[in-house]
């Protein structure tokens, strides 16, 4: 199975309210129920991890080879940041269901191209 994901301009920094445009492609060597493009944030660090899926675009019963162009509006927040206890990071992923095989593209969301440093 091969999953690929890229943004149209190759960028990984997006301002709140902006558009993330790109293409998700797949070559499947087994039947899957669906493929899904998800924009989400997640936290890592000390303690329990948290995750929030902001938008999911599902394609049911996909062909063995195919692609989907996507255009997702970036929410106003939260910004990408790192403190002492957690990092909040954004990503967009292409997931094959139900196997869960995933291709992920890390993003930074915020007014500046670097994550907010809260330390």
């Amino acid at each position, binding site marked *: 199975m091969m999953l690929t994901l890229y943004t149209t301009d190759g960028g990984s920094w997006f301002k709140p309210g902006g558009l993330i445009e790109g293409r998700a492609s797949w070559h499947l060597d087994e039947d899957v129920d669906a493929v899904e493009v998800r924009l989400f944030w997640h936290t*890592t*660090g*000390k*303690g*329990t991890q948290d995750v929030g899926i902001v938008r999911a675009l599902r394609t049911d019963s996909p062909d063995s080879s195919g692609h989907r162009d996507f255009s997702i509006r970036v929410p106003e927040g939260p910004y990408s940041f*790192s403190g002492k206890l957690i990092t909040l990071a954004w990503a967009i992923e292409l997931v094959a269901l139900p196997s869960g095989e995933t291709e992920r593209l890390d993003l930074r969301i915020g007014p500046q191209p670097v994550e907010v440093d809260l*330390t």
Partner: protein
Amino acid sequence: MNSVAVARYRPADNPFASHRVEGLAYRSKGIHAAALRLRLEETGPRSAIVGPKGSGKTTLLGELASTLPGEPVLVRIEGGCRHPWRTARTQLPRPVTPNHLVLVDGAEQLGPLEWRLLLRATRHARILLATLHRPGLLPTLIECRPDLELLRELVDELTPVDAPTLIPDLEELFRRHGGNIRSCLRELYDVYAGRASVEL
């Protein structure tokens, strides 16, 4: 005694971040989750994983959830929970059937009456596994005994080869945390986050 300032790691890059610690496989001197499946046939379908805090009971329980037969139901009762039985009951399916593999993390929080309620509610379960701090309530499947050697092994596995050497005296750390390995690893998170200094 001197101390040195340390490099600061982002939480996401910290070698001791929870997602990395939770990704460690359970190990105990050659005993792995697969071997415990066989041992369960001797102890019976209602058994306990016994050990002190931070000894790997939760990690082992999570691994057994995917290796033992049955539909896993993970019941988690946090330490200091004010209503442990109510908390447990809300996580149990109704009814519990012979297809269910019930795994209770933190069963030592239950009082004697609550313990009987749990046994009654899960009497039809295919398997009941509970973590306890002391043996006695159920046949012991395994007793988790953390030791300094295990801490060294886990720290070696978590620390990237190119990371600066920030690890304090592990023997002293292990002693100070009373053998609680999870607690040791959380302190090492602080060291790599630059929130603690290393004593030399």
